[in-house]
């Protein structure tokens, strides 16, 4: 679905991402773990176009299949196991380079980013927040579909429907996270980038959010790149994982392997409280 090759990102002189390479296959949930300041947010923001990488790196997105928007429900679980290794050559011919595109173009290409700290529009209503997520879907048919998606998301997150007239800023942290995810899904992404959805939430709420992520992947045929400091719960729902340390990817592998890895356990799993 997406592959990064040798991506470097600088903030002025600070070298925040060093020759990072990573890929996510269609239907996968991939976890990106790392300590504070490792560069996780930088990596996601570079994919979504908020940051420009230094020249030389590549970020390639697979084109949408069959031209049509991905359906709501469907072959989610089949897609999960599919695409082993074969995905990259399949889209090598007409992959889309993201490194020079603006964030709104990237959303239109099917990549939605749920930013760190949720970033809902606090003074606007919950319903308006969700609705604006579909801003990029224009045309009568697309608007009708967006309305259906909104109803579907309300069914998944009933609490958002109950609070639809309330100002988004008055929601609890967990509700705001659900709202931020629902807003991102209204753009009908193929690839969802999630930045620390569990940040600042009680472990039970985090678990609920993570259950939703798996469920959403299946229902919306999503591919997910998930950033978390809470490495255990992230790796438990992920297929594969990457470990980022001071801007470098130092380790990668299937989620079970990372969970069993001594170094990972010592550095990232020891501090987990909810286990």
């Amino acid at each position: 679905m997406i592959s990064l090759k040798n991506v470097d990102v600088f903030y002025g002189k600070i070298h925040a991402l060093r020759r990072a390479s990573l890929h996510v296959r269609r239907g996968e949930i991939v976890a990106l773990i790392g300590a504070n300041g490792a560069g996780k947010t930088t990596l996601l923001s570079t994919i979504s176009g908020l940051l420009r990488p230094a020249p030389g790196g590549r970020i390639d997105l697979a084109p949408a299949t069959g031209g049509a928007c991905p359906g709501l429900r469907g072959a989610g679980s089949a897609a999960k196991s599919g695409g082993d290794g074969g995905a990259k050559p399949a889209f090598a011919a007409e992959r889309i380079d993201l490194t020079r595109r603006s964030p709104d173009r990237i959303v239109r290409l099917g990549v939605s980013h749920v930013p760190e700290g949720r970033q809902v529009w606090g003074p606007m209503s919950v319903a308006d927040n969700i609705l604006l997520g579909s801003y990029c879907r224009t045309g009568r048919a697309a608007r009708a579909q967006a309305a259906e998606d909104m109803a579907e998301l309300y069914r998944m997150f009933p609490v958002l429907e109950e609070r639809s007239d309330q100002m988004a800023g008055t929601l609890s942290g967990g509700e705001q996270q659900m709202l931020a995810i629902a807003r991102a899904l209204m753009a009908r992404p193929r690839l969802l980038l999630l930045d620390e959805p569990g940040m600042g939430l009680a472990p039970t709420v985090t678990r609920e959010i993570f259950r939703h992520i798996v469920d959403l992947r299946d229902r919306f045929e999503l591919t997910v790149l998930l950033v978390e400091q809470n490495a255990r719960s992230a790796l438990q729902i992920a297929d594969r994982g990457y470990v980022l340390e001071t801007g470098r990817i130092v380790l990668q592998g299937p989620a079970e392997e990372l969970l069993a890895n001594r170094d990972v356990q010592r550095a990232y799993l020891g501090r987990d409280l909810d286990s």
Partner: protein
Amino acid sequence: MDFASILQYLISGLTVGATYGLTALGFTIIYNTTGIINFAQGEFVMLGGMFSVFFLNVTGLPLPLAVAAAVAATVAVGAFIERCTIRPVKHPTLIQLIIVTIGVSIVIRGLAMLVWGKDTFALPAFTGETPLRFLGATILPQNLWILGITLVLLAALKRFFAGTMFGRAMLACSHNKKAAYLSGIDVQRMVLFSFMLSAFIGSVGGAILAPITMASYDRGILLGLKGFAACILGGLGNPFGAAAGGLILGVLESFGAGFVSSAYKDAFAFLILLGLLFVRPSGLFGKSAATRA
């Protein structure tokens, strides 16, 4: 002081206040999408009046078309300002952009003086000058035009911001720009549009006021300042506070001129503003600073 003169001051205060309110609304729209205080806002009002006179007298368009052309020309100026002086600034800070708008306002005023000279020009009233009597006070038809058009604009703006995707997207830019980008909103286009919308509102205000106060190249400075005062009075960032602030300012000014002395008319606005800022720094209708952070 009899009732008729009080009513008279109220009417002229509301009329002038409506223009302050429209100017203040222009400030608010740009401020809300970008955080910039656009000090060229008063020039939009000036251009609305001057272009109307120009299109009427020089190109000979009938009055309604001349006003429409003036508004369109000012909107084009607004778009030009954003594209050519705001957008090209690399990694700008807000202060830099605000200073750019001050520079732009000086340039516009200078150009207007070069092209049109220092004279004041009259625009004919939209529907005649025959005054209407109302409870002993006199109302010009133009007063009714000003109040009516202001109300219509206010209602249309309310609908635009609360009822359309585009309007909501502009609001979203003001509340959280990063989230706007990430939801596929073209923030640059919203900024451009906010300048055009502000120019539209400012120039309409200028065109409808010109028959009462005349138009000249330097009308923008004081109107801009009064509009800004109205903004602060109503609470910066609140569109309806801005409109209300304008009306309140206009009425207080008119009573001040009537009861004290018209020589101090312009000072009243700023005295009121200073007084209010001591008591309520966030404005009459503003939220306290803590909740906006």
